[in-house]
């Protein structure tokens, strides 16, 4: 745990809302519009925090706890990522299970909060969210298997940090495939095109946006910040696999991470401008495709 790593963690928390902003800006520019400023989400968050809250009479404490649990689990998950390319603040053997468990805890809380409203739209969204997660989670573990094989370590610090950098020269092809697979996973887990369209305005067609339909004020601010953070965390996964930074000095590694996050955000924007949302029944196929890439990456390394 280096001072740069700690600094990077704080910076990550501050910069997270800019990542979806950059994606939206890219899409706007590519489709010939001016679009909202890249830092729009900060203004939205400041506005929402000052607003009042409306609670449905159907809801219970679970509805109010949802955004909090989701955000805390994401923040704790961030502690397992080696932001300086070497070592994370927290690590133990098998901590990728904890990382996946934390993502699942956040999802469980948000989806139950959605079910708490008793709205069939939110039930629909909840059902789709867990369906997509069913295919995303095994894919993520398949990526982890490929990384464990390459790095020979059982911690996220190891499979994304120094041992991974050492493995690049002989496992480069396999690791590139893992990077692509993780990028597809990023799109699916964060409800971006081609899995979901965050810009749509019809409740029936949305996944993530429909789950949070009834949240308002500071609660909605927590959720929006949480989804920006989740996108950023997956971005860190992608960047860490594709650009091992253990060879650079601490500050350079952190700078490289944030440059990488910017590129990932632009890539998300480009994907959103060049393709449409796929039909919901095709989403599992997309994710199985990503899993197949990760499987190939694994097989490449089996000796």
């Amino acid at each position, binding site marked *: 745990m280096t001072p740069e790593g700690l600094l990077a963690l704080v910076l990550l928390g501050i910069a997270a809302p800019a990542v979806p902003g950059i994606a939206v800006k890219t899409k706007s520019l590519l489709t010939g519009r001016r679009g909202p400023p890249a830092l729009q989400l900060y203004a939205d968050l400041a506005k929402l925090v*000052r*607003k*009042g*809250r*409306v*609670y*449905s*009479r*159907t809801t*219970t404490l*679970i509805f*109010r*706890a949802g955004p*909090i*649990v989701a955000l*805390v*689990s994401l*923040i*704790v998950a961030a502690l397992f990522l080696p932001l300086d390319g070497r070592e994370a603040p*927290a690590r*133990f*053997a*098998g901590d*990728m*299970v*904890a990382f996946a*468990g*934390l993502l*699942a*805890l956040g999802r*469980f809380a948000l*989806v*139950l909060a959605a*079910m*708490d*409203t*008793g*709205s*069939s*739209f939110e039930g*629909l969204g*909840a*059902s789709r969210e867990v369906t997509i*997660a*069913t*295919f995303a*989670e*095994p894919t993520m573990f*398949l990526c*982890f*298997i490929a990384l*464990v*094989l390459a790095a020979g370590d059982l911690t996220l610090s190891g499979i994304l940090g120094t041992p991974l950098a050492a493995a690049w020269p002989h496992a480069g092809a396999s690791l590139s495939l893992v990077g692509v697979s993780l990028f597809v996973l990023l799109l699916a887990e964060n409800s971006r095109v081609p899995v979901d369209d965050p810009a749509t305005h019809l*409740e029936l067609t949305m996944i993530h946006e429909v789950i949070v339909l009834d949240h308002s004020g*500071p609660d909605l601010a927590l959720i929006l910040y949480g989804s920006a953070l989740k996108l950023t965390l997956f971005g860190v996964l992608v960047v860490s696999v594709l650009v091992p930074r253990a060879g650079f000095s601490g500050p350079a590694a952190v700078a490289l991470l944030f440059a990488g996050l910017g590129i990932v955000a632009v890539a998300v924007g480009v994907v959103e401008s060049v393709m449409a949302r796929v039909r*919901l*029944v095709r989403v599992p196929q997309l994710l199985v495709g990503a899993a197949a890439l990760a499987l190939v990456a*694994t097989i490449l390394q*089996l*000796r």
Partner: protein
Amino acid sequence: MTLIALGVTLILLAGLAAAALARGAAIRKGEILFRGLFGAGCVAGAIPALTALSGDTVPEVRLAPTTPFGPWVFGLDALSAVFLLAILSVGAACAFYGLTYLAHERGRRAIGAAHLLLAVLVASLALAVVARAALPFLIAWEGMAVAAYLLVVLEHERREVRRAGMIYVVATHVGTLLLFALFAIWAGGTSDLSFHALAAHPPFSAGRGGMILAVALIAFGLKAGAVPFHFWLPEAHAAAPAHVSALMSGIVIKMGIYGLLRTVVLFGAPPPWWGWVVLVLGAVSGVLGVVWALAQHDIKRLLAFHSVENVGIILLGVGAGALGVAYGHPLIAVLGFAGAALHTLNHALFKSLLFLAAGSVIHATGTREIDRLGGLARPMPATTATFLIGSAAIVGLPPLNGFVSEWVVYQALLRGVSAGDAIQFAGLAVVVLALIGALALACFVKVVGVLYLGTPRHTLATAPHEAAPGMIRPLVGLAAACVVIGLVPIGVVPPALRVGSLVAGLPAGTADVMGTTAAGPATVFTVALALGLAVAWGLYVTLSREGRGGRPVQSATWGCGYPTPTPRMAYTASSFAAPLLDVFRSFAGVRTHRTAQAFATHAVDPVLDEVLVPVWRGVRSTAAWLRHAQRGGLSRYLLWVGAAVVASLLYLLAGGRTP
């Protein structure tokens, strides 16, 4: 061992007291006696179990041979201890819950006998795990099967209960017969069937050793409910009263796991094929169990299928352990077996919690169909809170106990990935484990969301009410156990590793040398997460009290502008599960009914409904054809006699020899 004998005696006495004092004014006294004796018995039995888990040895007891097949030996090692602990804690919770749960049936049923049977069941379970000879083991095993059968058919006036009881009793006795075969093959011609004698067997030929392991796998797999031997499980667990379902799903099926682990201890290193078969059985049971659970809308059947899923997870651990032994990776072996043992204990805790909470719901509403219920969080807050904890635990979410044991199993498999020989392919089971976890999350979101959240989907005859304190206290106790184990992995992982190294056949003390394999940092993680959640919640409540937005406004749920939602518009469990079941439709065992107005899914069991029942029908109709021969008329019997004489004469004529 004296303490265990004392504990078992006290539990049986408690049952007798409840049965003897089951009428009139004595009921109150009977209940107090039952609680006191049962509780004391469980505490007495738990003390030596904790001693054995902490690494100390508990001396064995040998009774002089009064029967054939050698002396009766009783002993307690770490493996027995972890099961004994689960039996006693869950047994006590279920027994106390049963006192209140059955109280309203007083006068209509033999409640005293039910309490006695439950005591017999718990006592035989305890004896089965400390038995160290085939004969007492089989006696306890059979006592367990018979007591469980009588408890399953407690509500025998219902037809489906009698059917479930019959399926259960057939399945369990097939298993017992296989156990007779197992011990017979194992012992060969020798007359000493104590486990010491069995363990000291001369090396088996590959064929005989394989036969022993295969028979053990089928016999104990049948008890554990692994696919494809699961067919009796959802029937019996759905038919029994809630506290009996809880005990059966939590403990009785785990005896199959105990049997498998004990077989490994006594047999020694199993060959690789056995590990692979167990691993595949685990993967298949895990995935199919949870997919079938998704298709269920009867809360008890749904929970029963989740037991199939969790047995799958446990078997993945056993398989990883067996492969670790077979390929010479002691750490993987220890972690695999330890994960299996720990998940057995954890599943016992949260599954009995879920069954008991479901029992409270059924008690309060009179229905098991989750699509008829909804919004129960308001009338039943305590039941909802404990059910929610149990759900998060069974899904394997941190910081609860399910996460801890799944993490150990994951670790075993992930270490397999980088081990470098054939065991690498076992590491791919990590993906299966992740799929099971994600599907379980979907299923429990469905259950919690439809059952407790939202609005009621039908008008019930009577308004639901919170369960009586006597039913809530056991729930709170079990939920507390789930939270505590989740918060201190450092307290449970080292004893589990002791169990693991015992099963892996490593010398005593290996686990202590091995250290805690990251249980320390994991404890820091779970405690930090729990603290983080608590602090964030506290901050949120304080800040929103003084927030500038003013008091929250109460309103109706946003219905896209539609102002008056009705119960019929609430999302149903069928609809919730539909997208996932669509993906898995080829083996989900689901029939879909879709009309313009309604959508419903209906689950069929692929093994019971589509294989076993048709086969038995076929056997019966063939037998019915034979029945024409035996109509009871004298003339027809005389005809058969005549035909037999003619046939014998023809046989002789054709050149046959006289005998």
